[in-house]
């Protein structure tokens, strides 16, 4: 465990590009200070992934990023041992690549976790969409994250983290995460931003947007969110939409069924048809 005092000195205060909810700011700082992985859950478009990048930017640290896939076993995030390359080198020689066939270290490549552990500086480690992986994988990662160490099986060598990385994990809650996994993280659910926060978020991206225009857009946006579409529009859609309207020189977002550039807000055919009041069964 890293000493708490040591870490307290690092404070994350948000950046100019990213609106940071004060609550979330404290949570990030607590997690950094306690040296615990921070698990962020919440709807798509609440800025979970972005947060990790902003932490790295604000604290001037380098990022290690792992986008999880369902085929991951966990180990490849730590290291990959390239047997095939070594076999090839042993037969045909490594040429002028500088690899030594007798030295296994030349054939071990570190994954994001491995790199974060072995480097000399402290890094931000992002495990994106952890819920895509099997629960076995999550359990494998548990020990690695908790101990700050993993073992290279082939040579039974233990890699210890020189510097505990700041670990940010995101989950879209497609599947439930196992309890032991949750136990070892600090968990935070990011609620969808309310209108006031949304104003600030939009302003960060479009600083010169007229007030009335923004208010009208947000009103339409939150109304659409309430309507129970299959895929309700999220922050990313809102920003796209406002961008499209500004690029298209539209005066206002429109009202009722007459919303400009509706395609940027609603993505599914079903939703658009529903919005326009056309039932599918009535179309021939």
């Amino acid at each position, binding site marked *: 465990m890293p000493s708490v005092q040591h870490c307290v000195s690092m404070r994350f205060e948000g950046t100019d590009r990213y609106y940071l909810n004060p609550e979330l700011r404290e949570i990030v700082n*607590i997690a950094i200070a306690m040296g615990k992985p921070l698990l962020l859950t919440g709807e798509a478009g609440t800025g979970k992934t972005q947060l990790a990048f902003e932490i790295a930017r604000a604290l001037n640290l380098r990022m290690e990023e792992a986008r999880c896939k369902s085929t991951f076993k966990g180990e490849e995030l730590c290291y990959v041992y390239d047997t095939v390359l070594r076999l090839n080198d042993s037969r045909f020689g490594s040429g002028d690549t500088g690899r030594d066939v007798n030295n296994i270290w030349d054939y071990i490549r570190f994954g994001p976790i491995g790199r974060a552990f072995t480097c000399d500086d402290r890094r931000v480690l992002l495990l994106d969409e952890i819920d895509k992986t099997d629960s076995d994988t999550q359990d494998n990662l548990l020990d690695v994250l908790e101990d700050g160490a993993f073992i290279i099986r082939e040579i039974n060598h233990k890699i210890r983290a020189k510097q505990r990385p700041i670990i940010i994990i995101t989950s879209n809650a497609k599947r439930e995460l*196992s*309890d032991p996994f949750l136990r070892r993280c600090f968990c935070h659910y990011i609620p969808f931003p309310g209108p006031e926060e949304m104003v600030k978020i939009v302003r960060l991206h479009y600083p010169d947007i007229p007030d009335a225009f923004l208010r009208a857009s947000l009103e339409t946006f939150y109304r659409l969110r309430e309507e129970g579409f299959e895929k309700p529009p999220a922050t990313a859609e809102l920003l796209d939409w406002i961008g499209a309207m500004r690029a298209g020189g539209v005066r206002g977002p429109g009202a009722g069924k007459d919303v400009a550039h509706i395609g940027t807000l609603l993505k599914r055919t079903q939703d658009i048809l529903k919005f326009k009041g056309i039932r599918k069964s009535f179309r021939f």
Partner: protein
Amino acid sequence: MIGFIYGLIRAGIPVSVHYILEFYRGLRAGIAPDLDRLFLFARLVFVKRVEHYDAFEQVFRETFLGDPAVGAEDWEALLSGKPFEEWLRREVESGRLPPEALRDFDNLELLERFWRTVMAQDGEHHGGDTWVGTGGRSPFGHSGRHGGGIRVYGESVHGTAQKVIGARRYIQYSDETPLKSENLRQVLSTLKSLRPVGPENELDVDATISRTAKNGGEIELVFQRELRNRVELIVLVDNGGYSMLPYVDLVKTVFNKIRDCFRDVRFYYFHNCVYGTVYADPQRRQPVSWEKLLASGRKTRLIIIGDANMAPAELMASYGSIDPATAIRKPGFVWLCELRDAFPVSVWLNPIPRDHWPWNSPTIGRIGEIFHMEDLTLGGIKNATAYLNIQGQGVDQAA
């Protein structure tokens, strides 16, 4: 501080000693210099699921803000207290509150009605303060649990206390069925079906070495497909008729867990006994043909959840279906045998406790001859998954 932790435990938030130590470590290090940060820090340490945010907020408020708002215990006392009891009895007797309606009300609504009456009564009860009694037992305490009606005692008292906290941002995430689902998850996650999948991209080191040696040192790489857990599961649920009614809650719990644990799982429904067609929706309106069901493949695991309790004729006689207009001649028994043949890896889960089987219905025994049957207890499900794994291994390897 200890009181706070016990408050959390009482509110149903799982707290481990590990959390407490971590909490103290953080406090000693000065992580929480003010109340806001204390709130966030405590939440990060103790609460791992969004379902518990609401309960946590209440406990925190009670402990640290010293809010005089009514705590969970008080509501419990109130709900089980004499005045409420009497009021409820009077309402039911006078017919103003039919017992059927009670099942549909939640505590909140009931309390609201109670308040209204008390206010209207104007002094008969010596004002609105003295009736907060203690002791006494609620007449509807446990019967309420049954039909999802008024849960006067127990878990959903909580739901009432939620009324007091102002900003309930997390209420819509509240637990649906907290009952034993944790153990269940562990048991279900042992269900395995390891199969070679995907492209051949895992190096088979042993085979490569032996091939290379035979080749006189010329390297020959042998790849294989990797083994992964790919459980395909079909769950057939008997959701019809009164015989299953008492078990609805139990089945629901198991059901939700199965849904969470596996990625490739399909649910079909039937009524009492299977006669060919099953249904894709609980209302049994979208039929799924027998052929389609059977074509799911021999590796698919089949779990049937039903009480196997029916009139013997439904199982054994031609035209036996409970649907009087049936045109199906084949008796249920034959259909079930076909099902068993199509799914060699299958098990029947019966919500009726095992020791009741022999005298509950003769059909249980007969169906037990076709399918391996376990009861819907933790042990039963454990046995069932073990059985499926053993049966499944043979099938997976044969293919």
